[in-house]
């Protein structure tokens, strides 16, 4: 037997493209976010609420990732926000190359905020850097307070946690303090917001944070 020693990261190709995306965002002063969650946690609803609050003062663009359909892009487009839909045709996550292709189709002139809405999945998107400044994990109260412990990689790799659907707390078996405690046990540096995209609770705090982060990206 002969042995070739290589020591190479399996995802190095993805990481190289992600670095290019990150450089582009830096050069253009764009604050880019990668939104991850399981399906139905409220990623698109959070975007819609954010548009309502921020659209008058900031230029926003969106890249949507879904396994099938452009339903989310249609929802975003109703707000007049430029959007590119990536359909992964079964793929369970977005990769940096897909985002780079989508960026080529978006007019990024003057864009302040770029939301990249990943495919709904709490496992696979955790390992793929897209070039974003921050990864935001959204967890809805209906999913239960144990999820940060069951899917630790996603919470470890994110810097922001949005606990959505807090208006449903009285009806679901989810203790908010336990949920936050579990999340902080996996990642004590998580910045946590509590929102309801139905009532609008917590949205202004989230948007204020986005404004501040965007200002520091300039």
């Amino acid at each position: 037997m002969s042995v070739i020693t290589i020591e190479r990261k399996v995802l190095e190709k993805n990481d190289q493209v992600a670095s290019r995306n990150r450089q582009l965002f830096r050069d253009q002063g764009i604050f880019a976010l990668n939104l991850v969650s399981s399906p139905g946690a409220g990623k698109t609803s959070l975007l819609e609420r954010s548009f309502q609050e921020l659209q008058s003062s900031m230029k926003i663009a969106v890249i949507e990732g879904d396994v099938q359909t452009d339903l989310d892009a249609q929802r975003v487009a109703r707000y007049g926000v430029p959007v590119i839909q990536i359909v992964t045709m079964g793929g369970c996550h977005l990769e940096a190359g897909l985002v780079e292709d989508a960026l080529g189709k978006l007019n990024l002139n003057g864009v302040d905020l770029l939301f990249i809405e990943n495919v709904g999945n709490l496992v696979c998107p955790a390992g793929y850097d897209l070039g974003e400044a921050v990864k935001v994990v959204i967890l809805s109260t209906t999913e239960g307070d144990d999820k940060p412990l069951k899917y630790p990689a996603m919470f470890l790799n994110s810097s922001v946690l949005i606990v959505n659907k807090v208006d449903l707390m009285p009806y679901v078996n989810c203790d908010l303090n336990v949920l936050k405690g579990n999340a902080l046990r996996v990642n004590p540096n998580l910045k946590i917001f509590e929102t309801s995209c139905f009532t609008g609770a917590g949205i202004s705090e989230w948007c204020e944070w986005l404004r501040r982060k965007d200002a520091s990206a300039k």
Partner: protein
Amino acid sequence: MHELGIAQNILEIVQQAVPKEQTAAVRSIRIRVGPLSGVVPDSLEFCFQAMVNETEMQNASLAIEQLPAILTCKKCSYRFQTKDLEFFCQSCGSSDLELVSGKELEVVEIELAEESDQSL
């Protein structure tokens, strides 16, 4: 279930590292996988085998080394392996920790059969 894409990446790395005329001699590819890489080793092996089946690399298999997640406590400097991926110091209870290893997903080395034993 993204192990098929990961297997494809591994195959590309091997094809870049091994001269074309020697790809049929590849027997074993050593991979390092951390528990926080998001990769399921059994699933990765299955996908890799499906991918090389009936190709010139059909005699190649993955040798997956599963690494533990190792953390260092920033308060008391205690270094430990996490059990069940619970992120608090097993010495002082602090949650101010640094992840030393656990996210690895790397191709480490490739073993090739010598010309004399390629018929095996």
